[in-house]
């Protein structure tokens, strides 16, 4: 039973003991329950329950013991993400480290971005314990003076219920931590509220192309052996949705970029072991709870036959989407108000006539300067039909949206 409903129930019980009429008690109960979801659209859609969060935290508990000190994928992604901190001149004293590659962020930070306090947050107790041991080890051995200058704090919390006061954090960093969150827009919106104005939100998530080969192999094997398909790979955000997520959460100046890493494994079993050690095993609620040995072996062999390389290894794709957004602030550039334009497109054409850029000046129409866009388009069509003398130059020409040809040099 959720805390909300329990609170509702207990307040109802309290009040009925005191003698308040039942109808009023019920109203109070619904108000108490409603309070939790009434903070606007921050808490978001409660019906999106794709992932089993408790199972995920247990899987991460196990991964905390399996994980190696340095992991090639996690290290590369974290390094790329933290590099983005150096692109800003600003200092961010207080940082929140949302789950995922927690201790990798802690270890690789090296004081970038002027971070003095790092609050690490995860749902899994053992992951946090690991992060604490890492922090303690630095204190004991005294290595890397820069690292021990970082004040490390840990809490156990859920990304969907962010326990931070509004306007308390300078930067939120999430290295591969948000792709197991049920209500992603709600979580990101809570991050935005928790950030100070002009605070930075940096996240790296796995994208839709991740483990594409494994997804195909699993589907084919299941269709062959079991006659049906159940989700073996979790649904992942698509690149085109990442920008929408940022704007929906209310971030200004959103940036999204994508990177793809291909890792080679001797066989599918090593891939699965690696995923287990990162805590990335399946936690989708609708998954089939049984996997027969036949299906597992069939998956491995299909993977090998469909995607195997010449030297016997298999590739696995990891597509990472890096998102960055700033919490709104008046110091940021705003788009101009509609109707406040001072220059018209006609003026632009006058100032930059389309033919001024092309090297072939034998065009009879090059003298006229003010043309409409349709005239330009028809011109270029004529040139296309008749202009074979331009064919050897077409490899170096490119077409402007207005339809005229622009010569590259």
């Amino acid at each position, binding site marked *: 039973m959720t805390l909300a409903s329990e609170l509702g129930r207990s307040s109802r019980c309290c009040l009925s003991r005191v003698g308040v009429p039942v109808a009023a008690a019920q109203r109070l109960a619904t108000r108490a329950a409603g309070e939790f979801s009434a903070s606007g659209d921050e808490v978001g859609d409660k019906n999106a329950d794709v992932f089993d969060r408790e199972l995920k935290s247990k899987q991460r508990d196990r991964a905390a013991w399996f994980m190696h000190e340095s992991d090639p994928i996690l290290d590369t992604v974290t390094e790329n993400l933290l590099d983005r901190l150096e692109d800003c001149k600003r200092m961010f004293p207080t940082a929140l480290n949302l789950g995922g590659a927690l201790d990798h962020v802690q270890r690789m930070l090296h004081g970038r971005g002027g971070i003095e306090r790092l609050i690490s947050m995860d749902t899994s107790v053992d992951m946090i*314990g690991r992060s604490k041991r890492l922090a303690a080890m630095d204190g004991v051995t005294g290595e890397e003076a820069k690292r021990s200058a970082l004040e490390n704090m840990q809490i*156990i*919390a859920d990304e969907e*219920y962010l326990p*931070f*006061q509004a306007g308390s954090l300078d930067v939120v960093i999430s290295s591969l931590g948000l792709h197991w969150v049920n209500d992603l827009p709600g979580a990101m919106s809570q991050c935005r509220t928790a950030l100070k104005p002009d605070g930075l939100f940096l996240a790296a998530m796995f994208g839709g192309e991740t483990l594409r080969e494994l997804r195909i192999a699993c589907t084919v094997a299941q269709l062959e052996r079991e006659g049906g398909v159940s989700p073996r790979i979790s649904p992942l955000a698509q690149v085109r949705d990442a920008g929408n997520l940022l704007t929906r959460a209310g971030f200004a100046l959103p940036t999204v970029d994508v990177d793809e890493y291909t890792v080679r494994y001797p066989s599918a079993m090593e891939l699965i072991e690696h995923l287990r050690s990162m805590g990335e095993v399946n936690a989708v609620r609708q998954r089939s709870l049984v996997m027969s040995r036949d299906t597992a072996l069939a998956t491995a062999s299909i993977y090998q036959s469909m995607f195997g390389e010449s030297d016997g290894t298999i590739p696995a794709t990891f597509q990472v989407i890096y998102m960055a957004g700033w919490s709104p602030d008046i110091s940021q550039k705003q788009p101009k108000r509609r109707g406040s334009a001072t220059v018209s497109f006609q003026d632009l054409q006058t100032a930059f006539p389309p033919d001024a850029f092309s090297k072939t000046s034998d065009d009879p129409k090059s003298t006229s300067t003010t043309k409409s866009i349709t005239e330009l388009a028809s011109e270029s069509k004529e040139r296309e039909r008749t202009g074979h003398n331009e064919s050897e130059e077409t490899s170096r020409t490119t077409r402007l949206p207005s339809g005229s040809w622009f010569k590259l040099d």
Partner: protein
Amino acid sequence: MVRGGILVKHAAFNTSLLQYLACPLSKDPLRYCEKSQELVNDSLGVAYPIIDGIACLVPSRGRLVEKLPKDPEPDPAAGR
């Protein structure tokens, strides 16, 4: 693998975190109760445990605190 050799002292809760933390459900500021090692949200009547010096602010771990009228505060707030 258990990391042998490093004994992490049982750390007390870091009270400087209080300026950042809030209740995960209603975002109200929390009160630290040293005696019962909990972070209490007085307006909603929920207390979150602190395990081994680490605050556990997951809604499912919250304990309901009965808020009857004229109830004296259970413990004096030590770190505020």
